[in-house]
Structure formats: structure tokens, C-alpha cells
């Protein structure tokens, strides 16, 4: 196992793999800098480009982009008061006031260094926990795999939605989409309505692009008006940045605590990444000797959310890799990417591709440090990207999406499917249905049916009466009645305490 860890971690420095991280990095930073385009949208847009790639390269590319997306959003949050993603909004509370005080460089140093070291913390926790998780997963059989998928869907449906019923409906819609094509148990055509095109079912790319990217394109087009960023950029000095980096070590306990909070929240599937920075910010404020300074440009107010924001990725990757339960929409897309490169997401992953799991952990750490270096050097110039008008950006993103939908299988029919799923995504977003649950349902639907059918035929109708299955079922029941704990964990309390004027996003 140690050998696999070493070979997996070193595999990213292979000259055939390294360029893909370097390729993902600028793409991730670019999309991160564009307000309104979250990391999830970035992953959806990039997914078609990994077709045909080797798994290690494809995942290095995607994870490289995903890891640094937050950094781009951090820069615009601090310099322009525009968070690239909801997760960056907590950084804005103290980051932008620091910029107004002429301390933009120090704020950036705080945020970017906290991000990089936070990712290191999360990555190391991931590596350690992989060792713990693997023997546990080896004890799992077919029924356990089925119930794990069910648990994952429950997590994302209940915890990731305003309304659990809507979450379950969304997940069910996703599973229903996976029924189209050929039955995985009997091999007979199902819901194809005589169409040969539907024999293989729906392609994952039009669904991912449509559901996640199309609503953002429509929002951008509707925004029409002027630039997204409306304030002048500030001076960013290297000396200040260095000072900001040293702040991490001056507030090392806070950094460790925030990274730990982020990693823990990342491990809890379905809570989502947007919560971690707010909880860390709230905790930092509560334990601070001078809480009144929070919101006025306080160093701790920048370090805490950023450390937790990137720390959570390691935790989220653990449940995604070890159990096939994604912590967020981004991780659900990453599971979809596994399928595209021929890997089975879910519990079998750690059994069969342990080296790849370690390779992903090291990509996470490496890409974050690399992204931090690039952003420190170029943050001021790169933030100019935020001045691109939404009306200009929308059509360009649409072209990328249409191109992505087509190129996934060089099939013109995928473009109408992209629009159909895009319309579905727009409606789901407008009515607050859970798009991540739909996508996860689609990704895991085939496997859920396979494990269900095989469990039934192997163990009979009482297949759920195995000890581990019962434990997973008990956990699922807990999840279903988890709402009160969710409110406590969601950080909304902290959000309101931190800034009552800030709208819930």
C-alpha cells in the first residue's frame, strides 16, 4: 500500500501527466476570476475535453482546474468586492476592507497562503484517511454498495436542498434518466421508443453541461448591462504579500482550526463547500480577542475562511473516492468524469485504483501551491478579466458548451439534448430543485440498479439484513432526520452574525 502511495503521488510529476495540471491550472484560475462562473460550471464545461484521455491525465487536468478555481474568486473578492463563487463571499467581509485601507497585498497574501496551506492540510488528512478507509471498504459486498449509493443520494438530496422532497425528486429524476437505453440487468432496450440513438442512453456531457452551465449562460445573457466589476483595482505590493504569508504562521492555531473545520465539513457529504468558510469565519470571530474588528479589515477574517475553503476539498475527495458519496455538486461532476474515463466511481474505486486516489491527493496539494504562486505573481493583471461584460461572456460560454456537447461524441444530436437539459436546468434553478442530486442520480443510477438486482438475486429479498447494510440504513435514517443538525452546521447563523446586511446566497 505504501508503494502504491509513493508511486501514485509521484505519478503527477511524470512528464506525460504534469502538462495536464499546468493546462488545468490557468483554465481554473480564469474561470475562477469570472464572477458568476463557479467551480461547478468550470468542471461541467471542461468535462467534454477529457474524453479519450488516460484517467490519471484527465483527473489531473480536472482536479488542477477545480483546485484553483477558488483562488481566482478570492482575488476578485478581495480586490473588487466581487466573490467569484459563494464560497469566496466570506473572504470578502474582511478582504475588501483591507483593500480599502491600502492593504490589498497583505489580504491577498493572507488569503492565497491560507488557501495553499489549507489544501495541504486537507490533502494530508485525505492521504491518512485513505489508509483507514480501505480495509473498511474491503468488507463491503453488493448490498452494501447499493445502500451506500442510496445513502449518498440521501445526503445530497436532504442536506443539499432547501426542501428534502425536492431533493429526492431531483435525485429520482436523475436515476430515471439513467433508465433510458439498455437495461443493465436484462440487456433489453428500455425507454428507447424505437430510436437507435437512445440505445446507449443519454450521454453524461449534455446533461452536465445543460443542467449546470446553461442556467449560468442565461443569467449572464440576462445581465446584459455593464461590467461585473465596478471598482478600481488597488496597488498590490510584493512586500505586503510576503507579510500576508507570514501572518499565517503568526495565527497558526487559527489556521489549523479553520483547516480542520473545512476538512471535517468536506467529509460530511452533501453539506457542500459553501458552508465551510462561513463556519470557520464565525468560529474565528467567536474565539478572537477582538471580535469587534471583524468586518473592518481583520487578518483573521481572511485567513479563517480561506484555510477552511481549500481544506474542505481533501475531506470531500475522501468520501467521493472511498464511498462514492460526493460532498458537493463539484464532486458529483468529478464522479461523472470517472465514468467518462472508464473508471467505476464508488466503493470499488479504492480497491482497484488506489494509486490514482493518492495521485489525486497530491494533485490537489500541488495544484493549489502552483495556483497560489501564479496568483501572487499575476493577481492584479488577472483581475482585469472581471471587467468583461456579462453580455459578452454569455455567448462565448454558450459556444464552449455547444462545442463541448458536440465534441463529446461528435454527434449533432447531443446539441439538442444539451438545450433540453439546459431548459431543465433553468427551470430547476428557478424553482430551487437540486441540480447536483439530479446529476448524481444519473451518474450512480446504473450502478444502483446493478447492485440492487445482483443483491436481490444473490441474497434474496432480505438482502438488507446484513450487519454493515443495517448500519448504512441506520445512517441513512439519521440523515433523513438530520435537518436540525444541518441548520446548526449550515453556518447561516454565523453568516447573519458576521454581516446582517449580507443576503443569503
Amino acid at each position, binding site marked *: 500500500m505504501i508503494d502504491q502511495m509513493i508511486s501514485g503521488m509521484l505519478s503527477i510529476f511524470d512528464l506525460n501527466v504534469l502538462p495536464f495540471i499546468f493546462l488545468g491550472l490557468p483554465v481554473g484560475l480564469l474561470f475562477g476570476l469570472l464572477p458568476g462562473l463557479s467551480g461547478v460550471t468550470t468542471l461541467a464545461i471542461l468535462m467534454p475535453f477529457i474524453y479519450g484521455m488516460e484517467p490519471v491525465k484527465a483527473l489531473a487536468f480536472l482536479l488542477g482546474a477545480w483546485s484553483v478555481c477558488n483562488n481566482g474568486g478570492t482575488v476578485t473578492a478581495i480586490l473588487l468586492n466581487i466573490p467569484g463563487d459563494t464560497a469566496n463571499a466570506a473572504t470578502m467581509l474582511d478582504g475588501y476592507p483591507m483593500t480599502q485601507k491600502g492593504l490589498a497585498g497583505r489580504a491577498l497574501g493572507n488569503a492565497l497562503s491560507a488557501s495553499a496551506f489549507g489544501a495541504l492540510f486537507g490533502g494530508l488528512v485525505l492521504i491518512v484517511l485513505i489508509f483507514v478507509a480501505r480495509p473498511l471498504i474491503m468488507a463491503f459486498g453488493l448490498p452494501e454498495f447499493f445502500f451506500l449509493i442510496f445513502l449518498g443520494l440521501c445526503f445530497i438530496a436532504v442536506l443539499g436542498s432547501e426542501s428534502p422532497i425536492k431533493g429526492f425528486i431531483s435525485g429520482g429524476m436523475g436515476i430515471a434518466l439513467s433508465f433510458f437505453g439498455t437495461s443493465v440487468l436484462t440487456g433489453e432496450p428500455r425507454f428507447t421508443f424505437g430510436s437507435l440513438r437512445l440505445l446507449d442512453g443519454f450521454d453524461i456531457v449534455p446533461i452536465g453541461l445543460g443542467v449546470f452551465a446553461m442556467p449560468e449562460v442565461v443569467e449572464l445573457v440576462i445581465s446584459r448591462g455593464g461590467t461585473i466589476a465596478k471598482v478600481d483595482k488597488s496597488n498590490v505590493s510584493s512586500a505586503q504579500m510576503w507579510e500576508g504569508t507570514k501572518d499565517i504562521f503568526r495565527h497558526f492555531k487559527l489556521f489549523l482550526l479553520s483547516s480542520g473545520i473545512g476538512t471535517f465539513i468536506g467529509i460530511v457529504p452533501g453539506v457542500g463547500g459553501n458552508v465551510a468558510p462561513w463556519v470557520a469565519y464565525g468560529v474565528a470571530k467567536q474565539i478572537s480577542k477582538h471580535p469587534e474588528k471583524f468586518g473592518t479589515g481583520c487578518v483573521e477574517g481572511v485567513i479563517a475562511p480561506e484555510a477552511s475553503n481549500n481544506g474542505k476539498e481533501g475531506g470531500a475527495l475522501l468520501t467521493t473516492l472511498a464511498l462514492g458519496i460526493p460532498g458537493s455538486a463539484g464532486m458529483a461532476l468529478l464522479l461523472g468524469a470517472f465514468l467518462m474515463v472508464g473508471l467505476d466511481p464508488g466503493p470499488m474505486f479504492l480497491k482497484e485504483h488506489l494509486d490514482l486516489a493518492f495521485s489525486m491527493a497530491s494533485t490537489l496539494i500541488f495544484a493549489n501551491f502552483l495556483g497560489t504562486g501564479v496568483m501572487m505573481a499575476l493577481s492584479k493583471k488577472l483581475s482585469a478579466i472581471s471587467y468583461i461584460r456579462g453580455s459578452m461572456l454569455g455567448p*462565448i460560454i454558450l459556444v464552449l458548451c455547444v462545442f463541448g456537447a458536440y465534441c463529446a461524441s461528435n454527434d449533432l444530436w447531443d446539441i439538442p439534448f444539451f438545450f433540453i437539459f439546459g431548459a431543465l436546468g433553468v427551470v430547476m434553478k428557478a424553482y430551487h430543485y437540486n441540480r447536483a442530486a439530479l446529476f448524481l442520480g444519473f451518474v450512480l443510477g446504473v450502478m444502483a440498479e446493478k447492485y440492487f438486482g445482483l443483491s436481490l438475486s444473490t441474497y434474496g429479498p432480505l438482502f438488507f439484513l446484513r450487519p454493515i447494510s443495517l448500519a448504512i440504513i441506520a445512517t441513512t435514517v439519521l440523515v433523513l432526520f438530520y435537518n436540525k443538525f444541518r441548520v446548526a452546521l449550515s453556518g447561516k447563523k454565523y453568516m447573519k452574525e458576521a454581516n446582517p446586511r449580507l443576503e443569503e446566497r
Partner: protein
Amino acid sequence: MKSRIWFPIVLLMGFLFLIVHGLNSLSLRAMRFPLIVTGIVSVLLLVEILRGIWRGRQKEVFQKTKEGSFKELVTHLPAMAVLLVILPLIWILGFLIAVPLHLFFFLKFNGEKWLQSFITALVTWIILYFGLYLGMKIPFDEGLLFSYLLG
């Protein structure tokens, strides 16, 4: 009230159709898992519809909820319609012409300057043609018109 429940009603109809169609045309083994899933989701959709009707009657609760509105959705429709134009354009003119053309008119429609729109469309065409078509050998569809003209 109607705006709140139209989406679950449409979904419920879709799910019921799948159940009826599946039961009529598929073996029980192929339909067992779909039947469980679609059955549960149909019940949940029914609950959601009833909730929508109930909340519609309680105006105060309706106003206080943060749920989406039909009005919000309607504002998205023109944008969706303009985006959709790319579909027939690709069908008729092919990928290489339709995409830059749509981009150009879309940018103009959004009030961008002629030169800016033209340069963006041109750069897109250059990337598509030289980078993807010639460079990466991606077989772009040439469209009905050119297929007809070129025989």
C-alpha cells in the same frame, strides 16, 4: 398557485407515462428497479403538488417562502429563445459558419459594438477552423445547405 405546481405536474405526467409504457413493453426484471424509483418519485411529486396547492391558499406563507416564481422563469425565456437559434443554424449552415455567425449577431443583439462583435466572431472562427477542424481533425457537421450544394 398554478405557477408553483406546473413543473411537478409535468414531471408527474412524465413519470406516469414511463410507468405505463414500461409495464406494457418491458419484462418485470427490467422494470423492477425503475418501477420502485418512478413509483416513489411519483408519490413525492404528488406531495409536492399538494404542498403547492396548500401554500397557494395560504397567501402569507406563499409570500414569505423563498421559492422560485414563474415570473422569474419568464424573464429567462427570451434569452433561452435567442440561445436556441444556434440549433437550426448549425443544422442548416454547419458548425463552422453557424457558431461564429450566431456569436456575432448575439453580441450585436446584446448591444456590443460592431468591431468588437466582428473580432470576437472572427477569432472564434479561426479557433474552430484552424485549431479544431484542421488541427485536431474534429469532423464538424457541414450543414444541410452545404451538403445539398456540394451534392
